[in-house]
């Protein structure tokens, strides 16, 4: 299709405004954060695969994986992973609500966006409180 790509454009086509033109709103920022958390989880699943494979091998491999995940850096990564997981899950629930045709009006969509943000932090804190109590 290179030949058609090289064809002269008759005139400049209208473009939709770029991100920098928009005033940041809650819904738009949460939309970007949804994508960023999704991307982070994409990489983070490597940790799950590593943990499962180590557990399937032997006690030494399990010990190495556990020690790494339990180090300061490992815990920070897992904390971020937990938050990304919950934030992305709540964002997904928000999308399901929108797909069903609800919550798209002015105050509701702002509440949903705010709920996604706050809910993500709250669920992360709850799970880590349980985790640290159990550990």
């Amino acid at each position: 299709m290179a030949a058609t790509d090289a064809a002269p454009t008759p005139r400049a086509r209208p473009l939709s405004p770029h991100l920098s033109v928009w005033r940041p709103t809650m819904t738009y920022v949460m939309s970007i954060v949804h994508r960023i958390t999704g991307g982070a989880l994409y990489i983070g699943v490597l940790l799950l695969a590593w943990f499962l494979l180590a557990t399937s091998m032997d006690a030494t491999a399990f010990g190495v994986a556990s020690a790494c995940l339990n180090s300061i850096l490992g815990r920070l990564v897992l904390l971020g992973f937990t938050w990304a997981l919950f934030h992305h899950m709540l964002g997904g629930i928000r999308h399901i609500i929108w797909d069903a045709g609800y919550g798209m009006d002015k105050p509701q969509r702002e509440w949903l966006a705010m709920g996604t943000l706050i809910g993500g932090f709250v669920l992360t804190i709850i799970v880590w409180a349980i985790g640290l109590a159990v550990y």
Partner: protein
Amino acid sequence: MADDLNSMRTPLGRVRFLGSARSGMREDWLMRVTSAALVPLTIAFVWLILSLLSKDYNGARAELGHPFPAILMMLFVLAGIYHMQIGMRSIIADYIHGRAREWALMANLVFAAALALACIYAVLRIGFV
């Protein structure tokens, strides 16, 4: 392609009835199905991980060796990795162009398939070996 600027046909007329990307709707639907499935699966997954925290090697193997946690983990992995593969496909389509996009799409598919197989293999090995 009839990209001739002197053609009488309108841009709309040229693309009409050629269809979309053809499999777009199916992908869109599967994204939603997996996202709905992942809500309970994620909660159960977090629960399972919390229950593994206090366990050592043998305890973790025993826990993951039970049918229910094992099936739960595999469902989470399958739905999650399928979901993230579609998600990354749309990120690639948005930000990467030209030949690099084709490589990125292939890498995405290989990464997702390898990761899913690794997780499933590990869970089955824990259960059966």
